[in-house]
């Protein structure tokens, strides 16, 4: 139970900065995303308003950048800064330095944003920013990552294992991937087609070896605590962890169809995507039973509700990726809007919902505030869930039609554009709904930070604040 007098952890400032950044970038990104879909839907807009910074060519890479590095990464780092010292019982020490690192991350996102608006994207997949932004990300990561890795603890005799394993993998994969990508793509070390392969590898690192493991840290820690049920089999969990970090970096190449990537690498991509699907299914068998028969709790506890949707989206995203890797499907869907459907599933439904659930669960523990039971909670959940369902399904259908039409040489390109229009309309509706959901979440988030609401008792995730007296975690796997 929480104490009445708030005791602020050293990392509270850092966590708050990261989360405020995350929420703000998401709002901005969602607004710009609506604008970019409008540009695609109504090509005449580009004639009426010929402004370079709001062209589709600028907005599309910009929103992906804001969502990946601003919203999700900053948000994950924020909730982990709250979570990790509490599961290990090792509080952070240098609060100021952590806070500065959190600010540097936001500055990096801001510089990236300005660069893409003014100079445009670099065109590199998942690396639309310049070297200076990479340097800022690195600087911030070194501090935050060191802080988080201290929280892993030296001896792993007690406390949860699976969240630690995923965190360890992510903390090593991110700098390694970013460093090699930077060296090979911009250090002049990789000529020609090797650059394209490196882009696919880096894209896989960002998603499957960095963000997915971080989301799994949260799922494997928070679901057992919130449901009061332990994860069934630790050895299966470890096996799936090994599979996830071994295979995750490979799967980007499954999406390249012919072209510049050697065919054995594409086949390797297909095989690893299918195998990774099996590992994800294994994690599903560990996590799904935690939620069985917990409908009532899911309805009452907003955190659990978002995490549950996040878990389902995790399974759905990787099943979808495995489906897309099948050679026959791949031939139809490469270079189509199916890519946007995948992004919606992975980034928004999986990472986004896990992040929202984690914020709902963890912010009270860090700031000693509760979420008011407010209609805004319901709005956030339903608008974002319905919005994302609309977006993902419209993009997926649009992509399949687009792929079939592209493979029929009798259909001219401008006709294909007109086929896409009805789907883009529903995408637009979905994006507006999601934005409204995000708006209501942000209102609640900022109002709670400013303590504008009368506090309701927060969900007790942690029995005590570990700043005062470190204690081993109450639940989880041992």
């Amino acid at each position, binding site marked *: 139970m929480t104490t009445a007098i708030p005791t602020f952890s050293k990392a509270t400032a850092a966590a708050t900065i990261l989360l405020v950044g995350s929420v703000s970038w998401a709002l901005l990104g969602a607004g710009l995303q609506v604008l970019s879909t409008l540009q695609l839907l109504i090509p005449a807009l580009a004639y009426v308003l010929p402004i370079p910074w709001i062209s*589709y*060519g600028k907005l599309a890479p910009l929103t992906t950048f804001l969502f990946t590095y601003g919203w999700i990464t900053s948000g994950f780092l924020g909730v982990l800064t709250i979570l990790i010292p509490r599961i290990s019982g090792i509080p952070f020490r240098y609060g100021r330095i952590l806070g500065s690192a959190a600010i540097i991350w936001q500055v990096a996102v801001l510089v990236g944003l300005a660069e893409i608006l003014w100079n445009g994207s670099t065109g590199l997949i998942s690396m639309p920013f310049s070297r200076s932004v990479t340097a800022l990300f690195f600087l911030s990561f070194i501090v935050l990552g060191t802080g988080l890795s201290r929280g892993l603890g030296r001896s792993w005799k007690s406390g949860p294992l699976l969240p630690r394993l995923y965190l360890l993998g992510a903390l090593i994969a991110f700098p390694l991937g970013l460093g090699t990508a930077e060296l090979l793509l911009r250090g002049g070390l990789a000529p020609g*087609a090797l*650059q394209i*392969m490196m882009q696919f590898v880096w894209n896989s690192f960002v998603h499957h070896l960095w963000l997915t493991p971080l989301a799994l840290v949260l799922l494997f820690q928070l679901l057992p605590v919130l449901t009061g049920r332990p994860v069934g089999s630790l050895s299966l969990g470890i096996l799936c962890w090994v599979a996830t970090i071994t295979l995750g*970096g490979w799967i980007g190449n499954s999406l390249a169809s012919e072209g510049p990537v*050697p065919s054995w690498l594409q086949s390797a991509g297909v095989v690893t995507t299918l195998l990774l699907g099996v590992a994800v299914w294994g994690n599903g068998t560990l996590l799904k039973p935690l939620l069985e028969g917990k409908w009532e709790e899911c309805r009452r506890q907003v955190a659990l509700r978002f995490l549950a949707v996040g878990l389902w989206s995790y399974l759905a995203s990787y099943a979808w990726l495995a489906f897309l890797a099948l050679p026959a499907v791949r031939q139809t869907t490469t270079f189509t809007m199916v890519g946007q459907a995948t992004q919606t599933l992975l980034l928004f439904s999986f990472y986004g919902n896990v992040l929202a659930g984690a914020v709902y669960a963890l912010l009270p523990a860090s700031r000693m505030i509760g979420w008011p039971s407010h209609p805004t909670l319901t709005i956030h959940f339903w608008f974002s869930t319905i919005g994302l369902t609309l977006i993902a399904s419209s993009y997926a259908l649009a992509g399949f039609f687009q792929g079939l039409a592209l493979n029929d040489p009798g259909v001219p390109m401008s006709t*294909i554009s007109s086929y896409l229009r009805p789907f883009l309309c529903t995408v637009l509706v979905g994006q507006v709904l999601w934005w409204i959901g995000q708006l209501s979440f942000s209102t609640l988030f900022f109002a709670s930070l400013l303590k504008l609401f009368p506090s309701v008792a927060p969900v007790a995730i942690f029995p005590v604040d570990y700043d005062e007296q470190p204690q081993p975690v109450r639940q989880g796997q041992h």
Partner: protein
Amino acid sequence: MKSGQALFIVFASLLFTWAGQIALGYFQVGRLEPILNEETNYTEPPVPSGLAQTGARVFASQGCLECHSLSVRGPSGSADLTRGWGPRRTVPRDYLFREPALIGSSRIGSDLSNIGLRIPDSKDLMLHLWNPRLRNSNSTCPPHPWLFERKVAGPKIENDALPLPTKDWKQILPKYQAKSLVAYLQSLHSDYALPEAPIK
């Protein structure tokens, strides 16, 4: 599990990922060389001009890749060749002198790997950048007027002014960005045969 074991597994699997793709990939495509055409004494793929290399960056920065791909697929399972997007499929060697090497993610518009063959004339490409609907009234390709400027026509005839009616004696002139982008688009053609990709 001990932390040391976990650390070992993480490093081993990341090494496997890295070595398996980048190191092996390096031996396969990283050491490709251009083919010397004995008749013309030019290399294939040809080395692009400096202007075209600047244009590649303009192409990336304008986000053309969000709608156009740069990779022609072979005849099995795709209609790229029958659509006239190129004389043959694209292979890794084609990207040898591309800096940055890009492939694109979406085909809202056509593949541009051979746009230099389809629209060889620089004036046509300029007009397309200024206003795609001048060439194709249904075009959904967005205009890029910010790559141009209006200037009062001087006493000497401007060679690169767009062939459009002047307004207030002002002509539409391409900026350096537009010129380099057009040079880049013109440099995109794979009409040379390679040992691994003959033209049938």
